[in-house]
């Protein structure tokens, strides 16, 4: 919400954004970015796909009813091939796969989103603070990030899961609290590039404090980076969650996620139950690729804004 407000605010040439949001030839900034973004056909298709998956997972269950929680009702249909009443067959517990895709997708998307939000909040705060302060504080803070980045992510996640166990809340926290190191580095670079610009100096000369400078002037100017970073963070956390699920460390039953579905499907693949693997793999793969295309296109769109400025 606030992202959009700030973007629109920037387009109206507010004085405090003069250096960050100037507009070329009467075209508003947001329209300009939309133009560049929509010129990238792959990104538009990807966007449509992501929206499609969202609708599928959240609106789908209203139109397609299926039992996803009561195993006592589903034992007769264990490993059913696609057919009447089961358009995509049933899984190893007898749950309908089409409905399962929506059911699992909801938790995958929600967890991925919440984890991405947590990691973004921490990463943005940490990075901007370090970049803005500079000096010794900055280098201490960044050495910590360097150290954490040199731990392979999956190993770190497994270590935390081994220690604390796993539940929905814990998975969100783990993915969020250990996923922000890269974001912090990007945001720090952004803050460093902004902190000595004229409009910041102007505020400082007028007596604006650090809090005001960061909150009102630096933060709004990093929105473009934030949106791009956020897109990749979302893809990253969904991917990490699905990898965990694939390793058998995803959300425990009765809930499920795409990774767990893939893992269960893989166990049955050699027997020939292809319907337990292919649909979920395809759905998930296209989603990750789409996220990456969108992120890439956003970076291009924002870069164009910077270049044409």
């Amino acid at each position, binding site marked *: 919400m606030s992202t959009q407000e700030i973007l629109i605010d920037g387009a109206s040439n507010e004085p405090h954004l003069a250096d960050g949001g100037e507009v070329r030839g009467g075209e508003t900034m947001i329209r300009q970015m939309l133009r560049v973004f929509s010129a990238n056909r792959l990104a538009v298709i990807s966007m449509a796909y992501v929206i499609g998956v969202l609708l599928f997972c959240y609106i789908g269950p209203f139109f397609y009813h299926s039992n996803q929680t009561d195993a006592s009702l589903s034992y007769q249909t264990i490993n059913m091939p696609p057919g009447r009443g089961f358009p995509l067959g049933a899984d190893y517990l007898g749950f309908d796969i089409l409905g399962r895709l929506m059911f699992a997708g909801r938790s995958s998307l929600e967890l991925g989103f919440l984890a991405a939000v947590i990691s973004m909040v921490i990463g943005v705060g940490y990075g901007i603070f370090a970049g803005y302060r500079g000096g010794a504080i900055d280098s201490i803070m960044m050495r910590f990030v360097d150290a954490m980045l040199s*731990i*392979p992510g*999956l190993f770190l996640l497994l270590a935390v899961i081994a*220690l*604390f*166990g796993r539940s929905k809340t814990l998975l969100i926290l783990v993915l969020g609290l250990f996923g922000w190191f890269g974001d912090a580095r990007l945001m720090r670079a952004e803050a460093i590039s902004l902190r000595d610009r004229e409009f910041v100096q102007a505020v400082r000369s007028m007596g604006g404090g650090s809090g005001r400078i960061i909150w009102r002037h630096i933060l709004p100017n990093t929105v473009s980076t934030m949106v791009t970073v956020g897109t990749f963070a979302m893809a990253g956390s969904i991917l990490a969650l699905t990898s965990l699920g694939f390793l058998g460390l995803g959300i425990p039953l009765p809930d499920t996620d795409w990774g767990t579905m893939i893992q269960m499907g893989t166990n049955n693949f050699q027997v020939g139950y292809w319907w337990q693997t292919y649909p979920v793999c395809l759905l998930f793969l296209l989603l990750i690729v789409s996220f990456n295309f969108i992120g890439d296109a956003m970076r291009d769109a924002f870069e164009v804004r910077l270049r044409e400025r």
Partner: protein
Amino acid sequence: MAQNQTSRFACYCFVVLNYSIRRFFQGLLVLLVVSFVTFLLPALMPGNIARALLGNHATQAAVNQFVHERGLDQPFVVQYWHYMVNLVHGNLGTSLGAVTLDQPVAQVIGPYIPRTLWLVSGSLVFSVVISVLIGMFQGIKRNSLFDHTMTFIIFVLFSFPAFLFSMLSIIFFSLTLHWFPPSIDSPTANGFWSPLQQMISSPAQFALPLMTLTVLGIGGLTRFMRGSILDTMVQDYVRTARAKGCSPNRVLFRHAFRNAVMPLITILGLSLPGLFGGALITEQVFNYPGMGQLTVQATNGRDVPVVMALTLIVTVTTVLGNMLADIGIAFADPRIRLSGRR
């Protein structure tokens, strides 16, 4: 003249050595932070370890006794001191796993380390060769059909999750085409060289895992190599070489290529954490008992000391790799050192 050169060489060595020492201490600092994290996480929740081992139905008294016996109730500083002293002596604690209970962690994970190292280094070799070739051709034939197609393919491969790629490669190459076996035979020897011997004696088994890790690696490397060769081709020294009448091939290989490849070393070092993560998944899929598979097993068995030790070892390897990359490039390309990276 000769003396002048000698002294210049000595000066050069001194600068590189100076840089290397600085870089070494930076790496040491990173390891200190990481070891603190691997110490802190379990120490924060001593009850969790006890519960993990004794089960949820253990009495509070039993938990307390367990915590006390292992010194988990001592002050942080004391615990950390013991931890570091043990670490320096190569003592990583004792395992809490069901099968390997009370065995020294170092002994439990020892045999698994070389397997992952060889798997990762094998894939590194392949990904460097492939991505340098592809990236270079993309750079030379910029904006051609080949360039665009490769960019697209690389991008899709780049976002391909490791587990999906390894699974699909099993489905396609192993279950459908029957070219390669879907898993690796469990190793019979534990030596440092035995994984390499196994790779050489039965390459078909390693084809798919190596392919998965290679594909994971080439995404970023190829992109970088393409950009790097484009950058060098517009440099002054390339223009000079052209002007003095070098053949296009000589310009490319003698002047542009060497300079373009150098920065790749740094990127290689930076790609190590991702590769180890990929190796974790790949080992699990192809049933290869390396550090990754052991981590998954230990996580399922909630064997915290083993998981922490594995995390630490993988990180040490990563940091060492990065350090070697930086020092290597400082030796090879003085400009990078003098321009004061970091």
